[in-house]
């Protein structure tokens, strides 16, 4: 079998990248155990004629019901004096053969139906799938019973019945994949090259569908063995003198109280057989399921792990509401460490709006999410630095203290308001919940406050809107609700992570002006993450430009817009279209940002920089002060007084 063939290959350890399929399978102890046990059972069953076993069908009434470990019969004898060990091995042969045959029949017809339905589509598809739905509308084993009832009890009839009720699983899975495949280019190409439909279906599509057929087989074969054994147990499958594991169990049941071993042994065998198949099948499926490979199904915990190797000293005097020092955030994926944030300093003063700007992958969002521990762990962790909210180091606080601060002292507005609001709760519920998490008040009072908040963010008819579900609101309305939620507990700091990116341009402008007004009204400090200089210039007092996990330039919005010092900032500004200047060239920045697990020496932007010089590619480029609140990480800045080189 294929599993054994794979097992022959040596398990080579790869240096990088994802582990190989085989390694994943063998590292999965359960799957490997399943494979070993299953192989053993199959080998013994195949070798049955060669083994020195008693004849399974020879009765010996004088020797009936011998207990386990009798001298001549290791597993004892049954009610007719037949050797149980021999019957067990021969019965396993029958059960395996029946289970595998049923699986092959179901796979063949199910896949055929699925392929045809998916490829032909239209009315054929409709008709076939309605038929499949009908079969699935029966409780699983009941249809098999009806078929056995009609055909009459017997092992072959039971086999057919079990195969028929399993056809839908194959048909459905295969149809889904086939539909996707038949719209792909290679199928179009085959069609244009004049290949017949049959040729395309079996030559082009079938090879691509095969893995799915194998997965479905590996997940259904266990059931099929179980269910055929069940029919035999009920006396509807194997008929004497023929015996499979199920019928042995059924016969033993009559003498359960006096000689339990006669029924316990075959049952145990069914269990071990099915369990080993299921373990192996699960392993196969997990390996072929790419989501599991990358570890994406890991559950993020409530707060980002903090494993700091360095903790900066607290500043002597606190002039900022939020003071981030030397923040480093890393992701550990498949043994590689991605330094998403590589030492970032930020200062946010009361009532101020600080824009953090950069391309996707620059680490700006991770910086923002690190502050309140909202970076998913696994795989993320805070590896160094500190963030002081007034006098508290946020990375040193208890989980409970962080929970108290989240949504009260520091609140968040996220990017896509459709996915960030809970789809199953009303706007009112989600708002009152946010209020009541931090303020002791009655539900009625909180609802009243929620309506006031909606009014504050200029949502008309707030009392009505509280009853709405997120999907019933427009994108702009939803983001207003998110902003209202962020204002619910008089936050000192609002962290807004690309709050306008998912919105239409006109709605963007409305949300920006709303945030601007609210900022003036409430005197809250805002950390505003965006990739768009147009947005920054509309709302931010100061700007920090990020590239490859570090800040490359800071300054007031006016200064940076007028005189960008870093070539990267210059390029970003040039990306913004300006109304009334249709002739202006829009520069895209050539190249891609470096991958943060292998940063080059020197300036990370060097490879894309039009002004790059030899000395840019070595050493550590420091962030150099250009004046009050103004600094750049460049040894050849574009304007202003450059550092001495």
């Amino acid at each position, binding site marked *: 079998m294929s599993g054994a063939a794979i097992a022959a290959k040596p398990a080579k350890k790869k240096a990088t990248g994802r582990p190989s399929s085989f390694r994943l399978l063998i590292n999965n102890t359960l799957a490997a155990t399943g494979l070993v046990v299953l192989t053993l059972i199959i080998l013994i069953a195949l070798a049955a004629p060669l083994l020195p076993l008693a004849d399974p069908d020879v009765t010996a009434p004088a020797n009936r019901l011998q207990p386990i470990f009798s001298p001549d019969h290791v597993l004892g004898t049954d009610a007719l004096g037949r050797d149980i060990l021999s019957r067990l091995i021969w019965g396993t042969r029958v059960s395996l053969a029946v289970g595998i045959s049923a699986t092959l029949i179901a796979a063949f017809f199910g896949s055929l139906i699925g392929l045809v339905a998916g490829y032909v589509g239209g009315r054929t598809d409709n008709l076939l799938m309605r038929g499949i739905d009908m079969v699935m509308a029966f409780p699983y084993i009941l249809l098999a019973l009806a078929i056995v009832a009609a055909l009459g009890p017997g092992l072959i009839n039971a086999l057919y019945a079990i195969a028929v009720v399993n056809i839908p699983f194959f048909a459905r899975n295969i149809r889904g994949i086939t539909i996707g495949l038949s719209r792909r280019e290679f199928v179009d190409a085959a069609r244009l090259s004049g290949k017949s439909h049959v040729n395309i279906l079996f030559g082009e599509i079938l090879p691509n569908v095969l893995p799915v057929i194998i997965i479905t087989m590996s997940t259904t074969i266990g059931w099929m063995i179980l269910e055929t054994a069940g029919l035999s147990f009920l006396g509807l499958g194997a008929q004497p003198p023929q015996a499979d594991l199920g019928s042995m169990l059924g016969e033993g049941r009559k003498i359960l109280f006096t000689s339990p071993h006669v029924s316990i042994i075959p049952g145990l065998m069914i269990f071990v057989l099915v369990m080993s198949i299921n373990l192996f099948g699960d392993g196969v499926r997990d390996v072929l399921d790419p989501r599991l490979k990358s570890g994406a199904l890991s559950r993020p915990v409530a707060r980002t792990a903090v494993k700091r190797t360095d903790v900066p000293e607290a500043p002597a005097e606190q002039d900022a509401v939020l003071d981030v020092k030397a923040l480093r955030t890393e992701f550990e994926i498949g043994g590689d460490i991605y330094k998403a944030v590589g030492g970032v300093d930020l200062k946010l003063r009361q009532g101020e709006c600080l824009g953090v700007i950069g391309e996707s992958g620059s680490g700006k969002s991770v910086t923002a999410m690190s502050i309140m521990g909202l970076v998913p762990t696994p795989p993320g962790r805070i590896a160094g630095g500190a963030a002081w909210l007034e006098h508290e180091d946020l990375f040193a606080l208890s989980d409970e203290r962080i*929970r108290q601060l989240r949504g009260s002292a520091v609140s968040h507005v996220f990017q896509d308001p459709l996915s960030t609001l809970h789809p199953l709760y009303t706007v009112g519920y989600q708002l009152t919940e946010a209020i009541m998490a931090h303020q002791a008040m009655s539900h009625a009072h909180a609802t009243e406050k929620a309506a006031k908040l909606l009014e504050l963010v200029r949502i008309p008819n707030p009392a009505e809107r509280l009853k709405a579900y997120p999907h019933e609101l427009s994108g702009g309305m939803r983001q207003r609700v998110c902003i209202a939620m962020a204002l619910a507990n008089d936050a000192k700091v609002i962290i807004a992570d690309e709050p306008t990116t998912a919105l239409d341009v006109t709605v963007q402008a409305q949300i920006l002006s709303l945030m601007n007004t609210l900022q003036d009204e409430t005197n809250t400090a805002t950390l505003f993450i965006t990739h768009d200089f147009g947005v920054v210039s509309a709302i931010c007092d100061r700007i920090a430009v990020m590239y490859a996990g570090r800040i490359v330039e800071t300054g007031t919005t006016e200064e940076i817009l007028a005189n960008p010092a870093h070539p990267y900032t210059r390029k970003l500004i040039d990306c913004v279209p300006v109304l009334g200047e249709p002739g202006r060239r829009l520069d895209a920045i050539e190249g891609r940002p470096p991958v943060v697990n292998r940063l080059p020496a020197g300036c990370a932007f060097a490879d894309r920089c039009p002004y790059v010089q030899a000395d840019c590619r070595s050493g550590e480029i420091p962030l150099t002060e250009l004046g009050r609140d103004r600094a750049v990480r460049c040894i050849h800045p574009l304007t202003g007084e450059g550092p001495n080189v």
Partner: protein
Amino acid sequence: MAAYIAKRLLAAIPVLLGLSIIVFLIMAMIPGDPATAILGSYATPENVEKLNRDLGLDKSLPQQYLIWLGNLLQGDFGRSYALNRPVLDEVLERFSATLILAGTSLVLCSVLGLLAGVVSAVRQYGWTDKIVTVLVLIGISLPSFWLGLLLILAFAVKIRLFPASGMFAIYGGGDLPDLLYHLFLPAVTLAVVATGVIARLTRTAMLEVLRQDYIRTARAKGLKERHVIYRHAFKAALVSVIPVIGIQAGFVLGGAVYIETVFQWPGIGSMLVNAISTRDLLLVQGGVLVVAGAYVLFNLAADVVQTILDPRLR
């Protein structure tokens, strides 16, 4: 909501018709002369002729189906030859016993499965998760009929905690405590496999949901983690697990065939097995139809519950 339920009920009609066609076709599959097959080779010619007339076998297949369907709709499921009573009476009587067993099992497996799945997801890779994962793997690989025998040996023979069989005590039983006493072992046995399946899917659904943006929002709001898990994540996971519970109803109803045989529960499953052995095909037909119909309604109920939970489906 009422309009939605009415719509779903209407949509169930073609499914029920489809079920009846399949059952009808299976019975038409019987090789040889159906009347002789049903009555056995020792049947008197008069009986064969009467049955042929009863079944309308002189007419075309579609005609036969329509006549048969018409009879079904009037509550005429035919007569059981072995029991000599109307099929419907017997089936309904037996089905009520099955409903008690399967219903209890379904409640058990839903509660236990959801609980195990949530705990397992929340403690991903922890000891609880590992134990639940192994138990689930064992559960879905266990032949339920064998498990039933083991439980009888353990709890009815070794320690005489529960009765080995039946629905009520022969003398002096018949009240609710007596029923529960008899119900415990079969209901638990029947629930094991479905519990495993539900636990497994709940775990996956929870892990999927916990990665969603709205869970991050809930945490960013400063909600207690317990609130995040049970209010925000669990409700969303439940929406995707409910249809699975509907499907499990089918496995539980089907699995009842084994469990009722093992525990001699007087339900429709053991009736079907006996009826197949005695070739009482009209009884088989009636039983299969009623159980399949009930399963369609179960799934409809699951759909309605899902719609109540998820406003986007309305």
